[in-house]
């Protein structure tokens, strides 16, 4: 399948990217890894007038340590993220979830920012940044703004990034001592996409869970926090039975759909089971 025609420009600064998007009008589009965009172009589900390639912008590459947080350039590939020492040391949940994204070839090209800006409800990384209270820097014609993860994801394939804007970087707070994390994902063997995924971070002190953050993948049009589970876990002992009981409400507040992969009821069952498993591993049970 052959994409329809478009122009292409590779830019080397965020300002140049924003200018090119503006000049290109409504149908101009950013491309970084192209791992979501190329399939859409080939099926002609997208027909941009011009692609603005942001994969060579230095500012959008790599990971920096800010002391209490790390900042990851939006065009950093999945492969670079999961092998980065700062990410492994301070945001291990992201490293673990990224290792489950697609396959090696796609991880070599696909980018962290691309996976977030694409806004796919089945994507693994949106629920991770939501669980970790990350914030995103977005650049546009009027300058830069910072948007928190809870405001970033708007609807299916819709995020806070406007048509003439570029997602520049993602800042994720470090969790510190006592926290454990795990990403639990259920998918068909031949396809990496999650039927349901659970990103869990829990803090254990003296055998008790004192804080918990849970993000759910593919349980609604946008990633959601399992707030009732977070509340129920706080103060319970870090034991399999108590964790399981606290995770019974995992499907509360979700809007699961029925599709070829699973029906709604089965997805809700998976939310409970996978949340319990993810929390147990994160809590070291």
């Amino acid at each position, binding site marked *: 399948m052959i994409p329809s025609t478009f122009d292409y420009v590779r830019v080397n600064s965020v300002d140049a990217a924003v200018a090119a998007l503006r000049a290109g009008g409504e149908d101009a589009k950013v491309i970084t890894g192209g791992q979501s965009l190329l399939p859409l172009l080939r099926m002609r589900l997208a027909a941009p007038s011009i692609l603005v390639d942001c994969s060579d912008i230095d500012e959008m590459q790599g990971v920096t340590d800010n002391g209490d947080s790390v900042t990851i350039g939006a065009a950093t590939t999945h492969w670079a993220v999961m092998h980065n020492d700062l990410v492994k040391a301070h945001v291990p949940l992201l490293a673990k979830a990224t290792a489950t994204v697609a*396959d090696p070839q796609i991880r070599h090209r696909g980018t962290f920012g691309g996976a977030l800006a694409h806004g796919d409800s089945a994507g693994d990384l949106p629920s991770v940044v939501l669980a970790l209270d990350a914030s995103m820097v977005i650049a546009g014609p009027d300058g830069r703004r910072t948007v928190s993860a809870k405001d970033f994801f708007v609807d299916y394939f819709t995020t806070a990034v406007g048509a003439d804007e570029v997602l520049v970087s993602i800042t994720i707070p470090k969790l510190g001592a006592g926290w454990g994390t795990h990403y639990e994902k259920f998918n068909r063997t031949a396809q990496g996409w999650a039927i349901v995924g659970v990103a869990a971070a829990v803090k254990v002190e003296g055998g008790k869970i004192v804080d918990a953050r849970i993000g759910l993948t593919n349980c609604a049009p946008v990633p959601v926090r399992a707030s009732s589970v977070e509340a129920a876990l706080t103060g319970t002992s870090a034991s399999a039975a108590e964790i399981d009981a606290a995770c019974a409400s995992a499907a509360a507040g979700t809007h699961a759909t029925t599709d070829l992969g699973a029906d709604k009821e089965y997805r809700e069952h998976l939310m409970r089971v996978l949340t319990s498993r993810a929390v147990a591993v994160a809590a070291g049970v």
Partner: protein
Amino acid sequence: MPEVRITVDGDLVTDEVEARLLLVHFLRSNANKLGTVVGCDTSSCGACTVLLNGRSVKSCSILAVQADGNSVTTIQGLAGEEWHPVQEAFKECHGLQCGYCTPGMVMSTVDLLSENPNPTEEEIRDGLHGNLCRCTGYHNIVKSVQHAAELMKGGSK
């Protein structure tokens, strides 16, 4: 039309191409590398896998213009005077039936072993997750990768 300069199996290939041209079509039509094939055309099967600057990628999922200025290795660039040890191992262990997935399997294996010279069976299956084979059931492919790892321990490449 934009001009691209892509080093393919060591030779510089320069051509004017449409921005929408996929790298796999550039390799097959402009660089005459017919060893790289299109399987699914939906980014799933990995038959089109090549190395871009040494790392495995699906050439149906990259535009030729995105690869401009970079270096590509196809299945045709692996062998020197002799087969590459991964090719040798696939031949030896009969890691194929129809052979359609093989160029991609071999390129993914080269990438996998460059990163992890001693993979476990689980790591092999995970490392070849992006390559589908409709014929073999993967058993002999896993054996081929294990054998290639042995051959490469000899330090040949």
